[in-house]
Every structure is written in C-alpha cells, then in structure tokens.
C-alpha cells in the first residue's frame, strides 16, 4: 500500500499487494490456515488489474469485518541523503512496532506520515506497506520514501497596513495608519537533525522594532519533545502612553511544546529608557536595567468549534510564571498567574451563539513584597480594541478604551514656567504666555487585572453575508486594573469592585482566514477619572 503525503488521498492500498498484506490471518488462532492462504495469495499476484480491484474491494471488506493480525518486520528508509536516519526512526518506529493488526498498521502509517510532514523538512513523504519475507508469515515491511527539500533556504517579506482603530466621533474623523515591515528567512535541516533556523525582523512606524534568531529541533537527545531556542532583540516605544522606551534582549528556550502544554525558559535583559525627560515619578523610579530569568508554563485547552466564530464549546488557559531563578538574588523576582476561561453556547436561531468569558491575572514580587513593587515590564496593561472572543491572551482587551487607556496612572513631570518660556523663546514660535505645561499622565500598569465579557453573535439577514461568514454581534465587557503590591495587607476589595469600567456595543464581524475583523459601535458605560475611553465607531483586528 502506498500512502502519499497528500492528505486528501487518504489511505489506498496498492492492488498488486492487496492479497499479500490484507488477506493475512483473519484470526489470531488460525496459524496454519493463514500460511495456506498466503501461498494462494502469492500465486494470484499476477492477475490483471480488474481482478486486482475486486481483490482490493474484498480486502477492504475483510478489514472492516475484524482485526487482521500482522506485525511489522522491518522499516526501510530511502531518500534521506542529509537527514539522519535516527531522526526519522525516532518519529515512526514506536508507532509501527506497536501495531499488531492491519488496521492498526494503517493508522500507524498515517500517524507516521503526519509526524514526518510536521518536521517541515521534506518535500514529500511516501509510506509503502509491503509484504514481509515468505519465511516470516504475518509480517509486513514498511518502506518510507522521503524527498528532502531541494532549496533549504526560504524567506518572505511582508508589508502590513494596520489601521489604527478607526474612531468616528460625531464631529471628527481621525484615522492613523501604521505600516509595518516584516521579513523572515528560514533555513531547514542544515545539519540533518530536522533543525530549522530562522531569522526574522519587523519594524513599525510607531517605533517598535524586533529582530530575532531562532532554532528548533524536533527532539533533543533522548527527550522526544521539540526544543526551540530563540534570541530576541526587541525595542518598544511606549513614549506616547508611559513616557519610556523598552529594550529587551532575550534568550528563550522552549522546553516542552505540545498543543496543550508549553514550558519555556526565558533569560531577558530589560532596559527602560527615558529619552523624553518627562516621565512621572513612578516611571522614573523604574528606569534602568534588570535581568529576568524565569520559567513559564502554559496550559491551553480549546474545545470550541471555531476560533474565528465560536458557537459551541469551551476554552481554558492558564499561564504561570516564576521569575528570579538563579543564584544571583539581584534578578527580578516575581510570581505571575493568568487564567482565561471562555464558553460558547448555541441559541438555536439565526445561527446565534452566546460567547462569554472571564480573564484574570495577578503578579506580585515574591521577595520583599511588602516594600517593593513589580517591575514595569511585567505588569498588566489594559485597553485595546482586539476582540476578547477568540484569543486566549490574558486580561488586556477592553472595547472603548485605547491602548493602556485604563488603570493606574501617575502625573508626568511638571516643567516650570520659566523653562517653558526659555524653550519657547529658543524655538521661536511657541506660546510664551508663561503657563505651566498641561499635565499628561503616564500609564504605570497594575498588578491585578480582571476582565469579563458577554457576546451575542448572530447571522445577518442578507444571504451574501451569511455565505461569506459575515455576521453581527452585540457585546458588553467589564474590566479593572489596580496596583496591589504595595498595599497587599489591606487589599482594597470594595474599591476594586467599585472601580470596574464597562462598555457595550454592537457591530459587524468579518472573519477571514488569518484574522477576525470587526467594525463596532462602542458605547462607554463607565470609566474612571484618568482613563482614555471613548464612545464611537471602532475598528479592530484580532488573531486567534
């Protein structure tokens, strides 16, 4: 039987080999009858293809009747010029050796095919199940033909136009667009261990830039888990929101990476800079260098029927992070925990569904927590227009609020009137009225964040919208973000409940293959004194 790498083909036995592989022993106890059957089957191998098809059909019927006992005698790998044989064997041997029937063997072949394709280093993978030697009855040989990629180097360059949330307030239309450039290079299987090397860079006009280099191995020595290592240089500009710039130089090692579990070690040098000289006292006290050595474990379970428009199921995510691992007690030390719970219930009309979710996160220093605060780069910041429906991303999104638009703030530095006059005189155009500069505030983040939402999605009446997946939704969301590390002993529970922000709205969702686009009218229900919330039309893009 030949199993190609094309997932649409499925499993198709070769007609010529049908008798040898499939019509083996039907039962475990019929040893002699199986031998006789095999002899007859060998004589029939040369029948024309028409009868071969009949045999194939009979074989399928036979397979559906019950287990056909067979075992794998040998696994032959061909075509691996560069790829180490041990790598391929490690991916497939266990599955084949555990197969004791034809049905299990077919399943194992499919599994092996998928695993080898997942390595992402082969052009094609073909698995043939051949009959074993005549001296060894009830056996099969597995032949794996691989075609390695001819050109291991690939790359792409993408220019995104990511519109800033479109805010249409009654009188003013304000639209800002940020272009970003992203490029990546990938080198596959350089050393034959399934290693994939990649380099990527991204730049956005708001000042954020990122360069990263990474290598991933499908397995490392005896540990079967994929191992990824990444070196990252990231520069983020938070001048507009918090009056500082952030530079991160980090090493990330993915120790465990499965669909549900992920364990990562991070070593990051974090530098907070102040090129503007206007940050608040809270920000000023956080400027400088720090080293983060942490382990992060995340568990994600997503049993929703769709990641773009879920109508049924639930999802749960938990992320734990411990920082300060190392002999040096000058490392950043904190504990961080995020929970994310989503649910979707179908309502049975107009394809409507009720999505709801709650997200919570807390971070606190674990050494000297009574008289120290959490590092700025690890705090929670809330306020963005990305939809909370799809992504399990922690407590960050709240419609109607700008990025870092809610939560604790601190007043920026006051500049004296005399220096304003001098500055205006030097720039020869300013207002030398002698007034003190208007006082903006810096978002300083918080230690405890909670958000919750409810979203009712429904089909739109027009057929063209229904066919393209465009649908409408109504939502309400609430959230709060506070600092607690300095007042843990007297946690202001009532104040925390009283200061929840909320917004509601209605909109249209346009799902695409890559992301979910929404055009919403958001109405701000409640905000606190220094928040940046606004009622109006907002545009958002979110990925799952």
């Amino acid at each position, binding site marked *: 039987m030949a199993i190609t790498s094309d*997932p*649409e083909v499925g*499993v198709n036995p070769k007609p010529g080999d049908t008798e040898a592989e499939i019509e083996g022993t039907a039962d475990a106890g019929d040893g002699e009858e199986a031998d006789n059957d095999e002899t007859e089957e060998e004589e029939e191998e040369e029948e024309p293809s028409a009868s071969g098809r009949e045999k194939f059909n009979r074989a*399928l019927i036979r*397979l*559906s009747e019950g287990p056909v006992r067979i075992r794998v005698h040998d696994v032959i790998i061909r075509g691996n010029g560069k790829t180490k044989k041990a790598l391929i064997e490690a991916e497939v041997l*266990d599955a084949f050796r555990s197969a004791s029937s034809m049905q299990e063997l*077919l*399943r194992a072949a*499919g*599994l092996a*095919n*998928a*695993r080898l394709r*997942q390595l992402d280093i082969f052009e094609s993978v073909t698995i043939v199940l051949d009959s074993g030697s005549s001296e060894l009855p009830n056996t099969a040989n597995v032949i794996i033909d691989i075609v390695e990629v001819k050109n291991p180097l690939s790359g792409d360059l993408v220019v995104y136009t990511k519109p800033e949330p479109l805010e249409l307030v009654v009188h003013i239309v304000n639209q800002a667009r940020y272009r970003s450039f992203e490029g990546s290079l990938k080198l596959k299987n350089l050393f034959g261990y399934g290693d994939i090397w990649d380099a990527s860079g991204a730049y956005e006009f708001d000042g954020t830039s990122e360069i990263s280099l990474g290598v991933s191995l499908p397995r490392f020595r005896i*540990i*079967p*888990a*994929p191992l990824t290592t990444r070196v990252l240089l990231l520069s983020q500009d938070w001048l507009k929101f918090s009056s500082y710039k952030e530079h991160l130089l980090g090493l990330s090692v993915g120790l*465990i990476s*499965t*669909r549900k*579990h992920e*364990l990562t070690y991070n070593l990051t*040098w974090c530098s907070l800079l*102040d090129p503007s*000289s206007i940050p608040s*006292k809270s920000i*000023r*006290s*956080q*400027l*400088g*260098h*720090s*080293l983060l050595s942490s*382990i992060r*474990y995340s568990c994600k379970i997503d049993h929703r029927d769709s990641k773009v428009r879920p109508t049924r199921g639930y999802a749960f995510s938990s992320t734990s992070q*411990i920082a300060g*691992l190392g002999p*040096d*007690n*000058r*490392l*950043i*030390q904190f504990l961080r925990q995020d929970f994310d719970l989503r649910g979707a219930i179908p309502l049975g009309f107009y394809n409507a569904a009720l999505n709801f979710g709650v997200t919570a996160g807390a971070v606190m*220093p*674990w*050494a*000297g927590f*009574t*008289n*120290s605060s*959490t*590092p700025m780069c690890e705090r929670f910041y809330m306020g963005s227009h990305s939809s909370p429906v799809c992504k399990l991303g922690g407590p960050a999104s709240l419609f109607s609020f700008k990025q870092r638009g809610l939560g604790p703030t601190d007043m920026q*530095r*006051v500049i*004296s009137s*005399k*220096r304003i006059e001098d500055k205006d005189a030097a720039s020869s155009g300013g207002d030398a009225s002698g007034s003190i500069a208007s006082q903006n505030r810096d978002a300083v983040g918080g230690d405890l964040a909670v958000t919750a939402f409810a979203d009712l999605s429904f089909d739109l009446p027009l057929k063209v919208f229904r066919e393209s997946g465009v649908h409408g939704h109504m939502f309400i969301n609430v959230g709060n973000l506070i600092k607690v590390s300095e007042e843990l002993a007297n946690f202001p529970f009532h104040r925390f409940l009283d200061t929840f922000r909320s917004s509601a709205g209605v909109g249209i969702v346009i799902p695409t293959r890559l992301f979910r686009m929404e055009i919403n009218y958001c109405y701000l229900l409640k905000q606190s004194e220094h928040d940046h919330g606004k009622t109006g039309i907002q545009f958002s893009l979110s990925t799952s």
Partner: protein
Amino acid sequence: MDDERVEDAQEIVLVARKGGFGLPTACPVCLPVYCYLRFAKVNFKLRIDRSNPDSDHIPYVEYGDYVALNNEKGGVLEILNEENIIQLDSELSKDCFSDWVSTKVMISTWLAEAVQYELWVACDSSIADYIYFSDLPWAIGKVLHWNQSRAVKQLHGITKLNVTEKEEEIYRKANLAYNALSAKLGNEEFFFEERPTSVDALFLAHAAFVINALPETSLLRSSLVKYANLTRFVETFKGDMLEASCSSSQTASPFEASSSSVPRTKKSKQSPKPKPKKRERTEEEKSFRRRAKYFIAAQVVSVLIFLTVLGGMGDFGVDDDDNDGLAYDD
C-alpha cells in the same frame, strides 16, 4: 519658581547612586550635588538609585512636582540656581566673578576628566564595579562596565597608541589645577568671599572621592595629598558635610537589589553599608524566602514528573482527533 514653593512642606529629594568608601554617595558625579545641598544647609532626603549606572539624568533633585535632571541645561546645580530653588552662588561680587567662573570650569573639566580616567581606565575595575554595578546582575554589570570604559576612552580620544600621552596630559592638567586651587585657597576656609559657593562643593566632592575611593597608589591621589591646605579643606568639611547623618529613604529601584558588596581590592578603602538595616530585612524575608524556595522546588519536581512518569510525550503534535484531513475507516 517661587521661594515659597521651597519653604512649603514640599520636601527635596536627591536621587543619587549608592554610597561607599565612607561617602554618602560614592559616585563622583552625584557627590557634588550632595555637597552643594549640604553647604546650602537645605533639608533634603537622599534616595539611592541602583539600576541606572549608565544614565546621565542621575543625579536629579525632586522638589515637589518638579524635577531637576542632570542632563538638562547645565546640570542639576545650574537648574537649582536658575530656578531659585537653592542659590549658593547668589550675590557673588563682580570682582571675583570671573575668577570664580574659571575655577569652577577648571574643576568641572580638568579634575573631572582626571577622575573619569582614574575610575574607568587607570584603576582596576573593582572601584567602578562597586559604585555602579554591584547591585545589578553580574552579566549586565560586566557588559555595562565594558561599554562605559569604551565610552570614556572614546570621549577623551584615548587609544592604544596614545594612551601614554593622554595620561601624561591628564595628570599634568590635574597637577596644574591642584596648584592653582591650593594657591587660591591659601589659609582661608573657603575659596571665595569666606563663604561656601558651588566651587567649594565641587572641589570638596572631587577631593573627598579622590582621597577616600582611589587607592593609595593612584597618581591623582598622590598629586592631591601633596597640597596640605587642600587636604585640610577636605578634612575640615568631611565630618560636617559628608559623615553627618542624613535621612535616606527607600531605594528608587523597586527590585530590592542586594546589599552592596565590598570591593575586593585591598588597596581600596572599604565601607560597607550600615548592618542593622540589612539584619532587619533578613529577619523579615527569611521565612518567605524559604517558602518561595519550596514552591519553586515543587514546580520543578512536578515538571520532572510530567516529563518522566506521566509519559505525555508519545503523541507530540499529533493527536487522534487532529484535523489533518486523513481519515481512517476501522
């Protein structure tokens, strides 16, 4: 800026780098500001910043909602003077103004350059490490130290080829400056008009650092101690200005960096931080640190159990319900 703003209850806070070598702040850039405030007899608090060794905005002075950063408009002292916060140099007579300016420039350039050279090039790295990097993780400290040394060399045009000539020039200027200052001071208590000015603050800070922090083999230190009146000047005010108790609040860095490590070199004077504060912190955090270690150990053990015993590695990336389009008929 109104004077009443200072006279108000708004406190003045000086944020500077850590102390050591018998000095409230061992950084030669921060110490002049400290001395200036002390000479002006202003009540202020000293707050230590431990995570910004390479930033030029330190030292800075917070007075209420206002801040005077060192990287703006001539530095903290200039801003304090111009904003009428603290004016030590007010009412300086016109006769000595030019002399005062040239003396101040000489201290701010020639002597400051000499101290920079000693700290980052000539002496071993232990002094600079202690002052600037002892509260940062080792790796960051090493990288920043190397970067700062390179920057100082670039600033002064020092290369491997001309290091000897540059060194001679720097020490020659420093000697000239000491000679001039000694002549100017004579037997007086202060340099100008028998009262403290910013020149006194600048020189006291410079001389106190050179005598206390630099090793005895330092050429700069040897040059300074040859002038008895300059040494007497330091000894006279060191007790009042630098060793008198001053209130110091919590550190500016929120990460509670470890207590300062004592420099390793035997030639350097050592001045550990006050021990009682350290003992209190240890008593408070002992049990919590123990619990934290148990917690981390439990996390590591659980991960190891997951890796070995539970055997969840069998179907990496491919689950039976994986929607990859391959269908099997049982």
